[in-house]
């Protein structure tokens, strides 16, 4: 499902004395099956932006096309369920949304809301448990007895269980240990390969560099640039201007440049830098 924003503005507390713009005239397009990343400082409007993609927020002006559905400022709150089934959203610290008595019940909550019968929902829940690499033994435990990292996986499984075509991830790996982080990112990459459209909000530029095909840069409610990670992470002036960091590999490559190395384009991932260095040091044969 493609998502197209056309001149979308969102004003919080529009009638109040403290009205402020969360989004200002944002236009962009996310193609079907792509992996997009949204980066920007805290408070730049990233979360506001993604909450428009499943109509949790509606634009104050402008329109959003999600698949065949058009969201306008006049869109009613009813009949949005099918949209929310198609566009899954993993919020920041999603473990806070857990509530059911058992892990299995919590994961099957989403599908059941979308009209899947209990038996099928349970079957899906067990599959999801496996997908997020949790042992089947936790299925009947209370989600509140799990560790923080396990709770995060249960919550993500709960979103995946609705089988969305578009998956929005709002800093899904914040606060996880490196191994958990890597496993989850691998899972998202795998889902992307299966054809899902992925939209990732992240402060981890390494992830953005490694997985994203398209990067949206937000700053103070404005979308300041939409481009490939390669071109954004090579534009140091632009990054500094919007208080963003380069991925570690790019920073390292830049230090190498000062020592006399030359790169046609600064590498942005580990694989890229290793390949480039092997070539330049003459270690790559064939």
């Amino acid at each position, binding site marked *: 499902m493609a998502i197209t924003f056309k001149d979308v503005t969102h004003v919080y507390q529009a009638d109040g004395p403290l009205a402020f713009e969360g989004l200002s005239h944002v236009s962009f397009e996310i193609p079907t099956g792509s992996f997009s990343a949204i980066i920007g400082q805290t408070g730049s409007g990233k979360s506001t932006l993604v909450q428009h993609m499943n109509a*949790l927020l509606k634009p104050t002006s402008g329109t959003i096309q999600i698949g065949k559905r058009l969201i306008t400022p006049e869109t009613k709150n009813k009949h949005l*369920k099918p949209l929310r089934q198609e566009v899954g959203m993993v*919020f920041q610290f999603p473990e*806070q*949304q857990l*509530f059911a008595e058992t892990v299995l019940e919590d994961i099957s909550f989403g599908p059941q809301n979308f009209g899947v019968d209990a038996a099928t929902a349970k079957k899906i829940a067990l599959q999801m448990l496996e997908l997020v690499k949790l042992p089947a033994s936790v299925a009947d435990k209370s989600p509140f007895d799990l560790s923080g990292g396990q709770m995060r996986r249960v919550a993500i499984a*709960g*979103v995946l269980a*609705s089988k969305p075509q578009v998956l929005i991830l709002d800093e899904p790996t914040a606060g996880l240990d490196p191994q958990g982080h890597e496993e989850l990112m691998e899972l998202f990459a795998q889902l992307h390969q299966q054809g899902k459209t992925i939209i990732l909000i992240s402060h981890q530029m390494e992830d953005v560099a490694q997985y994203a095909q398209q990067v949206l840069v937000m700053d103070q409610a404005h979308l300041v640039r939409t481009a490939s990670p390669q071109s954004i992470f090579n534009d140091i002036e632009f990054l500094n201007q919007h208080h963003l960091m380069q991925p570690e590999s790019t920073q390292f490559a830049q230090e190498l440049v000062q020592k006399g190395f030359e790169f046609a384009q600064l590498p942005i991932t580990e694989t890229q830098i290793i390949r480039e260095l092997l070539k330049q040091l003459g270690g790559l044969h064939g």
Partner: protein
Amino acid sequence: MGKMIIGRYLPGKSLIHQLDPRCKFIATFIFVAIVFLANNWQTYLALTIFVLSAVLLSQVSLSFFIKGVRPMIFLIIFTVALQMLFTPGGHPFWQWGIFSLSALSIRNGLFIFMRFLLIIFISTLLTITTTPLQMADAVGAILKPLKIVHFPVEEVALMLSIALQFIPLLSDETTKIMNAQRARGVDFGDGSILRQIKAIIPILIPLFVSSFNIAYDLSIAMESRGYQGSENRSKYRQLKWHFQDSLVMLLFIVLTIILIILRS
């Protein structure tokens, strides 16, 4: 988020905003008491002029005060109607069973209406120009004399200010959790009553869990910074009684005297 207005406070720099919250608190109470001194049009006029000039001084648009009346409107209409229909005396020019209308009862109804309006306006003025935290500090300060009877004034004030600071936090949390469950296909405010009640559970449980977590973190943070009960603690937010606050108190004494002279 995070920028929401707690209570009805509107930020501003007017003279009323700058008054000591204790002064505003006491003044509001005095006003509510002396409203009952008014019993003829001269006294009501004096009070109205007083309130309107206070509203003007606060530099807050009158519409916010009228909004303050709205939730009370049914109570006001009901009370005024009772007063009008059941006041005995005077020459009734309309009568139906036990109901009657006379010049006297209409006058009474009108005065009661004015009384409501004035009290609502002045208390709205207090809540619009005073932050909830200032309010909690003021309550703590005003309750201080109760220490003599071993009333835990400081603890109560602390509880009050913590509770107030939790309101925006919990409201943000509720929005977040509701959104998360909406994204998982919950329809709030849709379907039968039973379904709607059921839809509350996925909000309430996470909300309980997270408020306990927040409370737990807060108590750990306080203890790790050496919080030992509030005995002999100095305060970060100092309340200072200025000359203008004394002036306001003086103004209220003058107003009371005027009311006593003018009332019939």
